[in-house]
């Protein structure tokens, strides 16, 4: 990537779009490390996290990234995600912190009985707990501006009040590549180095760089049941089958990854990365549609975010 495979436009060499995006993300990460007291990288094991981790390795090479990885776990992720998580952290030479919300653990909060409380407690509350517990002042997140309308306006450096709330009306202007990293007492910053990447950029970059991602993104025969219009994979024995439900083996893959009982699979024959990209380009529904969380109303993500969901 870094060697300039130059596209000559007349007189001078012009960086390709992926080279420009890569250089920008690296610049952002280095600014954080130069100015933060105690940074951390939120690592969710998805493809965006994989890209972000890869960029961090590049930004600080030959040193390992000078911060730990934090996985705010729900105990309900796919088994394949836990495997990749541990492997990727070890390969990067980074400390991996796994946080489980002790209250959710004690109450046995799960996606079958507790609906939206599951996300609220494990993810939203869990993230706040972990950041406070370890006194992290800056947290990298893998969010992209193209994911959802309200994210298009979020800054690269996004400030959170002492109680982790986001105030969209009171954001700092970001000029050139100068980031104002000063924060008040108790404030923390979420930094999004992938802000300007699109889903297609991410896939192309993974392809070009040969980045290790969870095999669930590729099609395979997997046991699924059809429930409420979604194909849900039966990933372990905790899955509660309803009357008449019988897992069927289907060729499926996942476009986004989360808690397995809440994540819809798509039927697909795409077994390689180019095939996945091909399918993505020819498809007609957007990425977030597989997630249950923002179906209710157009503005739901914005509400979630104000409350502290990433």
């Amino acid at each position, binding site marked *: 990537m870094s060697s300039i495979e130059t596209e000559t436009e007349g007189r001078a060499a012009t960086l*390709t779009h992926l080279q420009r995006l890569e250089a920008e993300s690296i610049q952002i990460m280095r600014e954080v490390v130069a100015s933060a007291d105690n940074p951390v990288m939120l690592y969710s094991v998805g493809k965006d996290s994989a890209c972000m981790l890869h960029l961090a390795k590049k930004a600080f090479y030959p040193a390992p990234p000078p911060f730990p990885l934090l996985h705010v776990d729900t105990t309900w992720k796919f088994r394949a995600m836990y495997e990749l998580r541990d492997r990727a952290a070890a390969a990067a030479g980074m400390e991996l912190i796994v946080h489980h919300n002790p209250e959710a653990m004690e109450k046995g909060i799960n996606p079958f009985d507790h609906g939206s409380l599951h996300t609220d407690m494990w993810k939203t509350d869990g993230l706040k707990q972990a950041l406070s517990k370890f006194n992290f002042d800056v947290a990298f997140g893998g969010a992209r*501006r193209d994911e959802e309308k309200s994210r298009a306006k979020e800054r690269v450096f996004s400030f959170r009040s002492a109680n982790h709330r986001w105030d969209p009306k009171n954001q700092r202007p970001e000029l050139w590549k100068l980031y104002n990293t000063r924060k008040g007492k108790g404030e923390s910053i979420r930094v999004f180095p992938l802000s300007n990447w699109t889903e297609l950029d991410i896939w192309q970059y993974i392809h070009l760089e040969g980045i290790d991602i969870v095999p669930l993104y590729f099609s395979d025969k997997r046991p699924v049941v059809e429930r409420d219009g979604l194909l849900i994979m039966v990933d372990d024995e905790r899955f509660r089958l309803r009357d008449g439900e019988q897992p069927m083996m289907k060729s499926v893959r996942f476009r986004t990854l989360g808690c397995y009982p809440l994540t819809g699979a798509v039927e697909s024959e795409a077994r390689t990365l180019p095939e996945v990209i091909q399918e993505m380009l020819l498809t007609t529904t957007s990425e977030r549609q597989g997630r249950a969380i923002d179906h209710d109303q157009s503005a739901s993500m914005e509400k979630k975010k104000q409350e502290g969901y990433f």
Partner: protein
Amino acid sequence: MNLQDKDPVYVTDALIAEDIDAYLLKHQHKTMLRFITCGSVDDGKSTLIGRLLYDSKMIFEDQLASLENDSKNVGTQGGEIDFALLVDGLAAEREQGITIDVAYRFFATDKRKFIVADTPGHEQYTRNMVTGASTADLAVILIDARQGVLTQTRRHSYLVNLLGIKNVVLAVNKMDLVDYSAERFYEIVSDYSHFAKQIGMESFLPIPISGLKGDNIVTKSPAMPWYQGPTLLGHLEEAPVNDARMQEQPFRMAVQWVNRPNLDFRGFAGQIGAGQVRPGDAIRVLPSGKTTTVKSIVTFDGDLDQAVAGQSVTITFADEIDCSRGDVIVRSDAPCEVADQFEATLVWMAEQEMLPGRPYILKIGTQTVTATVTEPKYEVNVNTLEHLASKTLGLNAIGVVNISTDRPIPFEAYATNPDLGGFILIDRMSNATVAAGMIHFALRRSQNVHWQALDVDREAHASLKNQKPAVVWFTGLSGSGKSTIANIVEKKLHALGKHTFLLDGDNIRHGLNRDLGFTDADRVENIRRVGEVAKLMTDAGLIVLTAFISPFRSERQMVRDLMAPGEFVEVFVDTPLAVAESRDVKGLYKKARAGQLKNFTGIDSPYELPQQAEITVNTVDLTPEDAAERIVQYVLTRMS
């Protein structure tokens, strides 16, 4: 218009289905263009962007369904597809029907990836436009063909030009509503040319379009055969990007971070701002001026033979010379300038007005310093281009000022290199980004005024007096008892054989500061001068007592920073407003309440409470004598 009946003009590349590997290879070589769209509220900006997203197949079916639904409920196109809804993000804005912040949108064609900064047209949001323009390679200025060149158009064009954008497209929109009239189009172009010349815009490309109907967006409009130029998208695909221009300049890289994983490796990480670099190149580190050569260009993917502007790399040196974050590495025989006083344009972005003399944090490149505006020169009326005399700048005001930094910094004129000429100012108390600035040039005096080394130094002065110099800074409301207590403190110290001097607010205003009033700007300057005088007196070995309301935290901090560590003793004379007002020794509160005295602290001008005072004396519980005794004890203890 019914979208389902009409095939998107920009069809998906057939290669995707036929040969995905070939498609991917082709798309790895795409370049990227960042542009900004600016226009007035009803110029159809959001509609145009929605159209570009739609025509380049960036809208999925589920989004389209939600768009159709929203169009019926809150749309402004009578239930028809309202493209604007695709890009108006935040809930509050959707209700108001306007965009109020910078939003970034993405789309791509076979040749390029595009990042669009969508910024609002409202006058009060200049700061958003400047933000969006700061990273843009190109600007699309929208004009409603029915309205022609408006005040807003002038404002946007001025800002685009100010931010140094060389590629400007004048998109004359809503041509469908003026019957695709060539005459109307050329009339607008002629008007705009006149204005462009006035502001020094070198060139622009006018394109007649209809965002709603899709004319000249992706394909040439059959309704306007008289127009021979490129379509909007066609031009966006061909326009040059800034990186290419920056590569032709001499090498510059601001050091972000020193990479030192072990004793054997020391690399300097940064993003190359200009030029190119190769191993063996002779380089210089600024501001120190030390020289060496480049040993290697290190990346995760292996060492490079060459790196160019725009790339993030890590450079190692042949020799061990000092270099840290904030320094700039430049080509040895073509260094940039180093200075500490500049003329610059400021775009003020905060509600709180700019105060000359107040220290702000200035961030430029990777360097962070303290800076003050020393001399506001004029404010620009962006609508008329008139220069107005002004001592301050309010929200969204643009002005030219002289600015001074607390140490020399490497820089270049913004017009040459935005990377080393663009800066932000940060308020030290609120941490808000309060201004964007662009350096014009260094003031020559900064190179010619040097410190005179004196043989009898401050230690010599102090030791002759057998004391440690200090500034005992009394702050508090008018009538709190500052002067009374300071006077007693001085008498006591004098009796003990100490060399003191009392600077009193009212007395200073009769002489040194007689030209200053009571506006915020004047209050800042008042304190700055008193601080400098007090500093000279400590150099002379004196214990200085000052009695000034000094209502703002920033200025008290500024004086504290002027002094040697430990020599500043802040005394907060803590008297509740009601008590001070009931005393009203000088009858000032009465006048202020009657409206005869403006900007009176505590009444219509704020007093910011000290957060780190060395001593707080409560005058409700303590007599002035007791308060003075406590302060004297503190000063004496400090000395022993």
